[in-house]
Structures are given as structure tokens and as C-alpha cells.
């Protein structure tokens, strides 16, 4: 199986040229399912499967479900597991009647016959490569006849394997040979330089004769001097009277019309009655059939084709079939097939389509070995992720399958996801959608350790100075099969004295609080945490480098509810209770920032660090955040707008009864400056990013909650907090992104302003640390993978510097 694998691209599998021995063995191949996994360490693991069924032309008459391969594909680009959608395409539902002409149904035409074909011309259409290169090694027998004589098929010896050097098509009506580009050519499974027995050639002829495309078909050989033969197939194409109307019906799930054998002894009247009753049956069938999805423009195209053509010919029907089928397949209806043309020789051509109606949706769990097991995950959890279009009664669409794949993958519960449509044996034309899932382990724990050697006395490391540190984390996923999870991690740099710098986080996530069947998607989260951060409030301005740092330790409990409004937009609201401790460099509680005196001394009467003036604040407040995100990716460039509004509302509970309202509004627009064609590998458009951020606070504002200006996510080109710390701030930024090759370069300008509110922060840290309270910067940069390399000019001092940053600014 040949496959093209591009990370981040949809996988395409070309199909099967590996089916090497099919021509000689002539056995219908069993379906092969070949997920080829990459090593686990590979970040992009994927596999693809294809239902690969090079069909033989040595058909078993009774077989009515023959799968021709078509497409398989697709795995999600950024995921580290195996996702598969496969489509066994040719769910064969059509029967081919023997006899030619005559009847008013095309394929079902004359009834009788062997019912010989199983649609092999169909499959042949899809599987030519299967026969391509397997003959070289096979032996063949020379014809043993004089060269350049024409031999009828029945004159050939049944014991010899003939090598066919060439195949010619001779159109008896046009009195000319047709080229290989002719649509009929595809119907023949014989290939030049192939080796065939007489029986095979006869079968081939029979197949052609019974397919309904030809009124008459003959096969004759011409001997070559080198012992091979040249085969000429002469045919007379079937034609019917011209039609004006075209109709397409969905005959999926309807019983196929069974060809009724006509008694040759019938009188003319009986024959007439028979035809009339057949016609009636057919009309009833049409009436019962559901309308199909085929849109009006395609109808119009087909009608035009018919009116241009005059007589309806086999070729034109083939063309119609191709047009209709192409539309279906282009739109993702991978299981749709044109199975029959009916009502020929009337004014109307009826195209019978099996669209691929879903009759059953199966969700299956597999263990690591692929055995079907009873999964831990409850069905509704998976069920709610499926698009409606994948449910019973809808037409299978591969896009819906992909959507399901993505949605299920986003649950993060499965290591392997397959979405597989397969024909329903019990109901003809039906599709069973199978979703096969491999669950991840429910519990996982991880310990990572590190040793740090701290120099002891006299600078020499001693045994006691070796400190074991590390992180212990554990996760319990998918509790009760409802995707609830509990996770925790503890990090310390010294297990002997963990109280020094123990960092921990425990979180419990409870999705579907409105019930797993509710369309509302709300998730409850609660966590218990601590963190330690360097306060950017106590940072010096340009002339003041050495400001003694203040550490802000927060520990507390958080509980919130997240409501997913769309895939990207969400509303979160909850309660935070925390204790904030401010410490100086040596981890002592600091009640005020230190200031450096001009004479180099340090005084401890800087701005107060906490609201309570004790160095420890306790506070409870409500927090709400609403994100409206309409961004999407156009060839890898983000386009659209994203707005975030966040409020922290103090409740007057805590040290000094803090009552405050702290609010932030962030508006970001990604304006696409040029319309570009979308598609993989196409260049992204240039994008102008406009960004505004307002933050403000009314009421009690401790310094650790003041808004700081400057830094990679505020005003680039400055250090964190280098411009000031204020009660209200406004930041404006513009960035122009120009795509260059696989990445983009950008220029930007940013401005941050304290709106004159620095003095409204107690102790005025902006002024104490000699900061400007406002500043602009501009610069240019280029994105190199995940890293941004940029040169930013600080407008206050007029100097520039190069920065390397991870991630995106906006």
C-alpha cells in the first residue's frame, strides 16, 4: 500500500498495487486492514487503513457484495494516536442482468442471463493497477498457429495460456477502433501483455455481453509471429430512444428489483401484460424511493448532456454515472453508488443511487490487542460527540466521520480511534458505522527526580549538601466512565525539607454537570494550588536596575464552572479563596517593597506589598471570564476575532475586608488582508493584528494585583513591569504578518499607558521605582517554528535589542 504521509496533512492512501498475485490466483481477496503504526515516541503517530480489495474478474455469481477499494484516509494532524476513517467503497448493490438491449431497464435489463457479473466492470474501473506487473514471471504458451491469422474465440485451445500482446476495440457502429481513452476501455479487465486462458477470455466476453452496455460484442484473436495474440473486441453499443427528463432517486434500503424470467412461450398479449406490470412495478418503485441529495445544478448538467446527445447511448449513461458519482464522492458521500439506470426507452432516464444510508451505529471498545471488550467509558460520553449526520437514518458522509474523529479525540480518553463504515449485510444499501476505540489507561503516575548539589561550607559539596528533588504526579482519568478526572502533582527541590519550596496542584474535573445527555456542556472544576512568582510591580525603571525583588506566594482553592458555548467560546465563573504571602529574597515575609537610596543604601519603606500591611492577605472573590472566539485558520494563519472579558469581584471577605472590582477587556482582531485560495500547502494570507487591552480596578487594590506594563505580553521591548504598575492600564498593539515561505515575518508597534493611575496604587510603586508609566515600542521579527526572534526598539530610551520568545504574543 502506498501512502503519502505528511505531518499535519490529511493522509491519502493510493491504493493497492501490492496485490501482486491477484491476477494469477484470481481469488477474491479478503479485506485487508493495515494500520501501520509508527513508533510510540514519534510525536505524530498515525496509521491509515484502507479496505483494499482488488477485485478479480473471475466472479462468483452469487456474490453481491463486493467491495471495491476507494478511499481510506485521514488522520487528525496533531494528535499522537491512531485515528482511522476508512471507507470500503464499493458496497456493491447492483446486479447486472444478462442479455442486451430490449428491456427497459439498463442493467437489470433483459432479466435472464446468468446474473453473471457482480459489477466487476465497476471494480475494474477502480483497480487497474492490480494487474499491472504480475505477468512477467508467468509462463505462457505460444499459440502454435501460423502468424497473422484471425482466430475466433471458440477456436482457441482451452489448455493454453495465451499471451495477449495488444487489445483493440472496434466500434461496429462507427467502424473504427477506439482509443484507450474511451470509457469502454476501462470496462475490460484484460491488459496488454497479460496471460489468459480461453476460459478467462470467454468469461470476459460474457461479462461484457451481460453488462448491458452493448447490443452485441465479439472477441477475436489475431496471431502474432512471436506466439502471442492480439485481441480485438468488436462491439455495438446499446442505444435507447432519446430522453428529455432526468431523475435521480435514492434506492438505498429498498429491495433490489429481481429480474423476472420471461417465459419464452408467452403469447404477445401475455408479453404485453408482463411488460405493463413490470413498468407499473417500476413506477411504484420510483414513487417509493426517497429523493436524493443531488443538487439542481448537477441535474441541469445532466439534462444538458442528454439533450445534446440525442439518443441515449451506453456511453452517455456512463458519463451520467460518472458525473453523478463524482459529485457524491467530491462531497464526501463516499459510500454513494449509482447502481442502475431504469426507465430507459421512455422520455425519462431514472438514475438509481444508493447513497449509503446509515442503518446502525456501533460503538466498540477494544483492548490493546484489538479484542472487543466492554469499555469503561459510558456510551453517551462518546455518543454526544458524534455529529448528528452520523446517526442512523442519515447518509454517511466522510466529513461527518472526520468530525466525529476530531470530537472524540478531543475527549482525550482514547489512544486509538477508528471510524469505519461497512456495508450492512442484513439491509441492502445500508451502512453500519463502526466506531472502534482503544481506551487509555485510567490511572497513571509519574515520578521524576533530580539531584542538586549545593556547595556547603568552604564551597565544597558535602554529603549533606546533596538534595534530592523532583516531581510526583498522578492522574486518575475517566472516573466512572464519565470523563471525570483527578490529577495532582507535587514538586520540590528538596525532599528532606519539602516545606521550603513545595509546589503542588490538585485538580478534580467533573464534566457534564447537567447530565451527560444534556446539550448544555458545563464542566465543574476545583483545584487546590500554590504558586510562587516574582512580582513585576517591584521592578526598576530604566535607570534603576537593582530593585530588591518581592516574591508573591499564592495558595488557595478554586472552584469554577466552565460552560462551553461553542468550540472556542466559553464562559467560566467561580470562586477563588486564596492566601497571598509576599516575601523578600531571603524568603522572609516582606510587608513593603524596598527602595534603593541614591547613596546605595536600602530602605524598607517602599510601597506596601499587601493590603493588610502584614505581608499576608487572605481574600475570597468571585471570578468570571467570558471568551468570544471566532478565529479560524486560513492555510495556517489565524484569522478572525477574539474577545475576552474578565472580572474579579471582591466580596469584602478577607483581610481588611477587601471590596473591589477588577476587570479586564481584551480585544484582538486578526484581519485577513488578501483573499487566498484555501487548501493544504497553499500560502497563508498576510494578516494585520490589532490588539487592545484595558484593565482597571475600583476599590481595594493590593500591589500584587496592580496591572503592570511592559513585558513580552504587554509592551514588547521592555522587561516585565518596566513601564509601571497602575490601577488602570491601556495597551494597544498592531502587528503586520507577512508570510514568507513556510513561516511569517512581522513588524509591530505597541504602546502601554497607565492612564495617570499609577499614583492610585498605594505607595505609587511606579514612581518609587522611577518608571515612566507609559511607553511605546516597535520592531520586527520572524517566526522560526515555535520561537519568535524579534528586534524591538524601546521608544523611551531609543535603544533596541533582540529577543527570543516562545509562543504567540496574541
Amino acid at each position, binding site marked *: 500500500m502506498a501512502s503519502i504521509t505528511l505531518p499535519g496533512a490529511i493522509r491519502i492512501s493510493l491504493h493497492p498495487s501490492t496485490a501482486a498475485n491477484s491476477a494469477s490466483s484470481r481469488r477474491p481477496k479478503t479485506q485487508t486492514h493495515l494500520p501501520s503504526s509508527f513508533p510510540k515516541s514519534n510525536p505524530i503517530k498515525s496509521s491509515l487503513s484502507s479496505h483494499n480489495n482488488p477485485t478479480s474478474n473471475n466472479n462468483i455469481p452469487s456474490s453481491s457484495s463486493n467491495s471495491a477499494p476507494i478511499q481510506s484516509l485521514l488522520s487528525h494532524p496533531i494528535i499522537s494516536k491512531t485515528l482511522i476513517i476508512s471507507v470500503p467503497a464499493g458496497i456493491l448493490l447492483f446486479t447486472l442482468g444478462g442479455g442486451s438491449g430490449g428491456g427497459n431497464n439498463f442493467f437489470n435489463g433483459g432479466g435472464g442471463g446468468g446474473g453473471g457479473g457482480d459489477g466487476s466492470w465497476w471494480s475494474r474501473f477502480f483497480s487497474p493497477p492490480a494487474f499491472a506487473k504480475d505477468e512477467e514471471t508467468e509462463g505462457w504458451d505460444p499459440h502454435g498457429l501460423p502468424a497473422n491469422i484471425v482466430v475466433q474465440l471458440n477456436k482457441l485451445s482451452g489448455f493454453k495460456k495465451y499471451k495477449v500482446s495488444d487489445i483493440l476495440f472496434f466500434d461496429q457502429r462507427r467502424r473504427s477502433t477506439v482509443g484507450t481513452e474511451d470509457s469502454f476501455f476501462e470496462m475490460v479487465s484484460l491488459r496488454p501483455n497479460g496471460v489468459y486462458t480461453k476460459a478467462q477470455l470467454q468469461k470476459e466476453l460474457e461479462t461484457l455481453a451481460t453488462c448491458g452496455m452493448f447490443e452485441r460484442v465479439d472477441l477475436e484473436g489475431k496471431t502474432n509471429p512471436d506466439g502471442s495474440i492480439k485481441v480485438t473486441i468488436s462491439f455495438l453499443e446499446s442505444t435507447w430512444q432519446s430522453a428529455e427528463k432526468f431523475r435521480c432517486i435514492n434506492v438505498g434500503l429498498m429491495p433490489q428489483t429481481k429480474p423476472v424470467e420471461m417465459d419464452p412461450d408467452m403469447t404477445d398479449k401475455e408479453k404485453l401484460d408482463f411488460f405493463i406490470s413490470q413498468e407499473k412495478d417500476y413506477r411504484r418503485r420510483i414513487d417509493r424511493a426517497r429523493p436524493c441529495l443531488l*443538487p439542481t445544478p448537477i441535474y441541469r448538467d445532466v439534462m444538458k448532456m442528454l439533450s445534446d446527445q440525442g439518443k441515449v447511448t451506453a456511453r452517455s449513461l456512463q458519463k451520467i454515472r460518472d458525473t453523478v458519482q463524482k459529485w457524491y464522492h467530491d462531497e464526501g458521500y463516499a459510500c454513494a453508488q449509482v447502481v442502475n439506470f431504469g426507465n430507459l426507452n421512455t422520455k425519462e432516464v431514472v438514475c438509481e443511487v444508493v447513497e449509503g444510508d446509515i442503518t446502525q451505529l456501533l460503538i466498540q471498545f477494544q483492548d490493546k490487542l484489538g479484542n472487543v471488550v466492554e469499555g469503561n467509558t459510558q456510551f453517551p460520553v462518546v455518543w454526544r460527540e458524534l*455529529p448528528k449526520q452520523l446517526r442512523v437514518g442519515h447518509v454517511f458522509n466522510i*466529513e*461527518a466521520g472526520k468530525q466525529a474523529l476530531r470530537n472524540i479525540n478531543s475527549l482525550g480518553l482514547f489512544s486509538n480511534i477508528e471510524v469505519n463504515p461497512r456495508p450492512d449485510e442484513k439491509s441492502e444499501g445500508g451502512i453500519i458505522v463502526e466506531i472502534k476505540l482503544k481506551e487509555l489507561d485510567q490511572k497513571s503516575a509519574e515520578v521524576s527526580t533530580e539531584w542538586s548539589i549545593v556547595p556547603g561550607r568552604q564551597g565544597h559539596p558535602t554529603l549533606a549538601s546533596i538534595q534530592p528533588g523532583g516531581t510526583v504526579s498522578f492522574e486518575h482519568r475517566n472516573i466512572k466512565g464519565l470523563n471525570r478526572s483527578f490529577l495532582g502533582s507535587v514538586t520540590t527541590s528538596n525532599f528532606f525539607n519539602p516545606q521550603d519550596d513545595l509546589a503542588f496542584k490538585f485538580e478534580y474535573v467533573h464534566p457534564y454537570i447537567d447530565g451527560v445527555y444534556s446539550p448544555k456542556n458545563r464542566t465543574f472544576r476545583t483545584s487546590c494550588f500554590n504558586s510562587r512568582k516574582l512580582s513585576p510591580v517591584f521592578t526598576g525603571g530604566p535607570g534603576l536596575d537593582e530593585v530588591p525583588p518581592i516574591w508573591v506566594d499564592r495558595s488557595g482553592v478554586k472552584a469554577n464552572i466552565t460552560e462551553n458555548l461553542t468550540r472556542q467560546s466559553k464562559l467560566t465563573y467561580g470562586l477563588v479563596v486564596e492566601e497571598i504571602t509576599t516575601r523578600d529574597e531571603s524568603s522572609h515575609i516582606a510587608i513593603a517593597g524596598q527602595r534603593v537610596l541614591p547613596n546605595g543604601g536600602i530602605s524598607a519603606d517602599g510601597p506596601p506589598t499587601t493590603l493588610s500591611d502584614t505581608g499576608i492577605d487572605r481574600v475570597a472573590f468571585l471570578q468570571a471570564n*467570558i471568551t*468570544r472566539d471566532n478565529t479560524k485558520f486560513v492555510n495556517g494563519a489565524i484569522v478572525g476575532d477574539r474577545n475576552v*472579558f474578565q472580572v474579579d469581584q471582591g466580596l469584602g471577605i478577607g483581610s481588611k475586608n477587601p471590596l473591589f472590582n477588577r476587570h479586564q477587556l481584551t480585544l484582538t482582531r486578526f484581519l485577513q488582508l488578501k483573499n487566498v485560495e484555501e487548501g493544504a500547502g497553499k500560502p497563508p494570507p498576510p494578516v494585520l493584528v490589532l490588539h487592545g487591552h484595558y484593565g482597571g480596578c*475600583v476599590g481595594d487594590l493590593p500591589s500584587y494585583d496592580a496591572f503592570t506594563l511592559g513585558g513580552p505580553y504587554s509592551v514588547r521591548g521592555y522587561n516585565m513591569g518596566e513601564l509601571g504598575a497602575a490601577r488602570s492600564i491601556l495597551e494597544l498593539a498592531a502587528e503586520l504578518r507577512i508570510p514568507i515561505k513556510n513561516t511569517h515575518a512581522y513588524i509591530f508597534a505597541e504602546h502601554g499607558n497607565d492612564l495617570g493611575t499609577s*499614583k492610585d496604587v498605594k505607595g505609587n510603586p511606579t514612581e518609587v521605582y522611577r518608571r515612566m508609566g507609559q511607553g511605546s515600542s516597535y520592531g520586527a521579527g520572524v517566526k522560526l517554528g515555535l520561537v519568535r526572534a524579534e528586534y524591538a526598539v524601546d521608544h523611551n530610551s531609543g535603544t533596541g535589542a533582540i529577543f527570543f520568545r516562545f509562543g504567540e504574543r496574541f
Partner: protein
Amino acid sequence: MAGQIVREWSGIQQFPLATQTKLLEYLGTLKQENVDSLTILVMGKGGVGKSSTVNSVIGERVVAVSAFQSEASRPVMISRSRAGFTLNIVDTPGLVEGGYVNDRAIDMIKSFLLDKTIDVLLYVDRLDAYRVDTLDRQIIKAITDSFGKEIWNRAAIVLTHAQLSPPDGLSYEDFFSKRSEALLKVVRLGGRIKKQDLAFSMPVILVENSGRCNKNESGEKVLPNGISWIPKLVKTIIDVVSNGSNGILVDKKLIEGPNPNEQHKWWIPLIAAAQYLLVQKIRGLIKDDIAKESKAAWELRDIGAAKRKF
């Protein structure tokens, strides 16, 4: 102030007779207006001659001065009384250190002045400095931030080192008016005083503390323009006092400024309510987004929305 021993203003006797007469006359006018004490705050950059001016006015060497280093590291109040009238002069350390405004010095001055009323602010600078820069402006701003704009209604600019020969081509008067104009402009900018407000035009007084100061026939120290400056200084101070504005009472509120944490606190419920409405509004917009979301053709077809158009 109560515990402080107010000494007799004996230094006044050292002044020449003409000066003494004038000073007593001015004090008499003040007494007539029922003013029996006066607090003068002297501020300025370091080394401009604040302390020397104080010494000159008191007529004693009350504050140590040195030519090469700043002596005063904290504010000092000198109080002298004469004939039932008390004169308080607050000498302060220089406001500039290391090229920046010394916030600590200002804080110190503020806490020193707690519960006192400033009648007059003397902002001291040198006449023989040629230009003004942003530092001057920052000093003025710092003073304004500490004591409020109103202090400039009770202020006078004092220019020391008045005995100089101006640079080429400028007459003494021209130089003086240029220099005072520049300073007044800085005060206006730094104090964020609107142009129309400055109609009162702050007085500018020239001072020469040096012992080499020229003297007139009655032994009074006179400036190059012939004016005897000590009486003139006192006269101007008295004019400022009686210009109708009020003295600045330095209380706790003035020192700490309004507590920003208490400001607008009563608006919080209203703000929170408005924010609730805003969130609801955004939710509405998101709902519209869902409705407007461009769906793929296959999704629409299935719900019959495509009507076979595509």
C-alpha cells in the same frame, strides 16, 4: 511647636538701623491684620543657598552652612519672636539627590510639617544658573503633588547669588527678568497651573547672602540694582501672606493623599451590575455567532437547509 522654646529674635539687632526700622514696620502691619505668627517653608535644590538665606533673614548663624557639602539632612524649624510676633522658618534638605527628586526628603518634610500651617513657601534657586531643565519641573511637580496646587498661591521664588555680572550683552534687569520668566514657566508647567490662574504672577525676590555683598550708605546689603534686599524679602513675604489666599494646613490627609483604595468604592455594585449585563450581551453575541456560523454543505444538506441548491 508647644514644647519648643521660642527664642527672642535677637538677630534683628544686628541689622543696620534702616533695615531694622523697616522690618519692625512690616511686622507692625501684620500685627494690625491680627497675624502674630508666620511659618515660612524654604525649599529648593541642594546647594542653592536655602540655609544661608535663612541665616541672613534671622540675622544669626542658626543653620550650619558649608560651601561644599549639604549640611542639612533633615528639616529644621527656626522660631524667633519679637514683640509678640513669632517667625517660624523651616529650612529643608535639598530636594535633589543623584539626579532625581529625593522622595524620601519630601516625605520627611511632609511628616515634619504635620499639623503645621505653611504661610509662605520660598522656592529657592540660583540667579546665576542659566537654564532650567526637566529636573526643575520634577521638583515643582513633587512639591505640587505633596502640598497641592494651592501652595503656589502662597509662594515666592527666591533667587540667590544675585550679585553677579550678567553674561555679555545683557543688562542686569534683562537677565533677571529672563531668568525669572523661565522659572515661572517651570512652576506653571510643573504645578499644572492654568495660564489664566497665574494672573497673580508669583513674586520673584533676589537675594545675596555672601558677606561680600555690596552695602549702601546706611550699611544695608544691596543688590546691583540698588535695592536693599532683606526688607524687600520680608515685604514680599508679607504681601504674599496678605494676598487673600489661605495658608496650607499640612494634615494627615494631605500627606497621604486621598486613599485610592477608598475612591469610587460605592460604585462597585453598579459596576458589577453593568458587567453582568455586558456578559449577558456577549453571550447573546456568541449565540448569534452560532447561528451565523458557516456550516459545511454536508451539514446543511442533512438538515434540509440546502434545499438542493448545492
